[in-house]
């Protein structure tokens, strides 16, 4: 590593080629093909954080028991005019038996005293020994629940991990952040607050296409879980998985039933399973009914948000709603370590909405 850094310093014309390490990022790539794909994805994105990145490949089928390692230093300009940001990338291939004991290879490679993020693409094998060992070396687990094969089970496992004080970052939750912000903004200001408590229905529109129902399930559960956890909703019916037509989940608040419905619309394959619209209808006691909606515009980079109070304020505005790449989302999540208590309570309610028991430690 020291030699690699000397080379970088010698090769970079800019005096300030900067080695910054603010975290360790361990990525469980599984196969060599996936590792290559991830490397390409990460390299195509300007890095926001200096990190030591360790990519893990498990090659159980090769005979013997050995560890192959390759390392490099990559530099990219974070912003025009600022010195390049450099980070180290180490690829470890565990051959044969070692493939199930990769944690022991990772530990000595971590930069001491820095937070360690474990990124596990896809649905992790919760409960599996390798996963538990890897989790043991990480401060923070990074997953994308929209890629879970079984969203209900996956979210219930995450809820358990959160209860066991494991820090969890979900790219899917990050993907929903701008939506959550625009939705929350409807109810900012004392005059609008009663409309949040008076919600009668939540309608979600997703792009149709490959795997759209599976991806949309996790998103529906998280969004309904979020609003439900803030407003004290309890499930009346549950939602295991969405079929690609309309589905309904009913929740209760006090003596009122609230319908959560979904719908799929064709918006091109790129949008398959992604949220393209949200509509909320509210009728607080003693106030006029109101409809709040956010809908992606055709350019898919903006959304139109509308507030429609019967006989009152009618507001419409366009807000940027960029579709973030996985690498962009990853960058954002790497800025958030520790416990996101909001996500922790949301994932608990989401797994209840999915009909999964949540284990509560005694």
């Amino acid at each position, binding site marked *: 590593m020291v030699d690699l850094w000397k080379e970088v310093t010698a090769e970079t014309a800019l005096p300030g080629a900067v080695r910054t390490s603010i975290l360790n990022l361990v990525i469980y790539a599984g196969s060599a093909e996936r590792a290559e794909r991830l490397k390409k994805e990460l390299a195509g994105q300007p890095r926001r954080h200096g990190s030591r990145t360790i990519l893990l490949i498990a090659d159980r089928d090769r005979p013997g028991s050995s560890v192959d390692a390759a390392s490099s230093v990559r530099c990219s300009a974070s912003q025009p005019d600022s010195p390049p940001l450099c980070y180290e990338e180490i690829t470890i291939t565990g051959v044969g038996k070692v493939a199930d004991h990769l944690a022991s290879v990772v530990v000595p490679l971590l930069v001491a005293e820095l937070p360690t993020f474990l990124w596990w693409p896809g649905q992790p094998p919760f409960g599996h020994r390798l996963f538990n060992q890897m989790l043991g070396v990480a401060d923070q687990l990074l997953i994308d629940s929209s890629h879970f094969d079984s969203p209900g089970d996956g979210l219930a496992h995450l809820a358990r991990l959160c209860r066991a004080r494991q820090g969890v970052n979900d790219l899917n939750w990050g993907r929903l952040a701008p939506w959550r912000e625009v939705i929350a*903004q409807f109810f900012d200001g004392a005059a609008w607050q009663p409309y949040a408590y008076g919600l009668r229905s939540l309608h979600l529109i997703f792009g149709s296409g490959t795997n759209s129902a599976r991806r949309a399930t996790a998103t529906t559960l998280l969004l309904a879980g979020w609003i439900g956890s803030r407003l004290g909703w309890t499930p009346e019916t549950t939602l295991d998985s969405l079929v690609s037509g309309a589905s309904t989940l009913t929740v209760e608040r006090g003596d009122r039933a609230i319908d959560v419905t979904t719908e799929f619309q064709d918006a091109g394959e790129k949008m398959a399973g992604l949220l393209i619209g949200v509509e909320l209808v509210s009728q607080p006691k003693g106030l006029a009914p109101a409809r709040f909606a956010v809908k992606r515009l055709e350019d898919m980079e903006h959304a139109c948000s509308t507030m429609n109070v019967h006989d009152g304020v009618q507001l419409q505005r366009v807000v940027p709603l960029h579709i973030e790449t996985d690498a962009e989302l990853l960058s954002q999540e790497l800025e958030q370590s520790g416990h996101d208590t909001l996500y922790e309570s949301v994932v608990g309610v989401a797994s209840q909405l999915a009909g999964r028991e949540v284990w509560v430690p005694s």
Partner: protein
Amino acid sequence: MVTTVQNPLREGMTVQRTPEPSIMVIMGATGDLTHRKLMPSLYNLAVEHLLPNGFSVVGFSRQDKDHEDWRSDMRQAVDKYSRYAPVQPSVWDSFAQGLFFKQADFADENCYLQLKEMLDKLDKERGTNGNRIFYLATPPTVFPLIAEMLGKAGLVTDQAFGHGWTRLVIEKPFGRDLESAQKLNRELLSVFHEDQIYRIDHYLGKETVQNILVFRFANGLFEPIWNRNYIDNVQITAAEDIGIDRRGGYYETAGALRDMVQSHMLQLLTLTAMEAPVALDPNAVRDEKVKALRAVRRLRGQHVLQDVVRGQYGPGWVGGQHVEGYRAEEGVAPDSATETYVALKLEIDNWRWAGTPFYLRTGKRMPKRLTEIAITFKQAPLALFKDLDPDSMTPNVLAMRIQPNEGISLKIVAKVPGQGYDIQPVYMDFLYGSSFARQVPEAYERLLLDVMIGDSTLFTRRDEVEQAWEIVTPILDEWSHTPAPDFPNYAAGTWGPDCGQELIERDGRTWRVV
């Protein structure tokens, strides 16, 4: 007071900084500040989803324009100055629906009554609930008039009585000296409460300036040595390579002491010198800042002549270009005695700082643009290395760079590899741009959002302004009855006049080479 919005969907969100819907009325909406800073910053906030639904802006100015004329002016300004330029047409169009213009004469009561009607109507249409911000982007001479007229027209309401809230934003200069600042404060306070007034010093909106507090009070390492026992001196430099940029008329009435020292530089000194506040709330932070300013020793009479020096640039070369001297600039008298450079030594008479001087210097047409605070620590006892070249034993310096290349560097000495004990200075450098690559918001974005939220931590309180003038006014008084130096006394593109060097060298120190 920070308004907390009881929105259940905000509970638990990490971004809690969300304003309630409101209307911002910009008085002087055709001026430079509105074009270069205010409108581009508001648009940037819109792009970042930080503006509330229904947020509206009313331009209130003397030019004859309609809504559409003003919208199209503003669009051009945003296109030119926004960090998100060029504008995204769909975002602009919906943002511009909330922009309105009202032609007005600031002295005519009727105009304010019409404004009130217009705002009441907008409240109903746009759900802004009577919440208003009046932003005075006008010359300071009309601040008292506008405040008085707003009061008379019933446009200043108190939330305590069930109305929406009213806030007033004013720009520096807050007076020309202590007396005029006190007068302005009295005039504003006859209409507004202090907690409704937001005095902008845009330096406080800079990320790096806010980081001074984080650096000092969130790291355990530095605070124990942040005092007279370990620090030899503090140097605050604010150098500009530009001249006065066609603002001769203004600059002739101000000068470097009023323009930079009374506001920005004393803010930097305060943040460096203050004690830890008991909380990060507006009054706790500002209480400590005021205490630090109160402890700054006032310079009078002979001490002014000894510890404050001034300069004015003549022609010279900056960045490979020949530039005129100050007296040849537009709007400047050919025999002007206005200072474009000032350097001073201040002492802080409290237990933390007694005996540790703070040297401040600021100037126009310096070799480069740079603002920094440099903390020079006391030299280590040298007994061990006494045979070495004494020049190689430089003290540790911690430099907080405010702009450009925002960051922090620590100078330490290290052993040169080899047989002997050769020692050389090395730098540990932290650059914002390298550790965090997210775009830094502009100072005005942060400050405008703070006004909407009602957080006045980064705004200057009445007593802070007056304390700063108490430090600066005796210097102005002394200068007013001593003959002006033989100006110009430094060439553009240099680090100022010789007297600036002498000020520090006579204490056996030198300015940092920056």
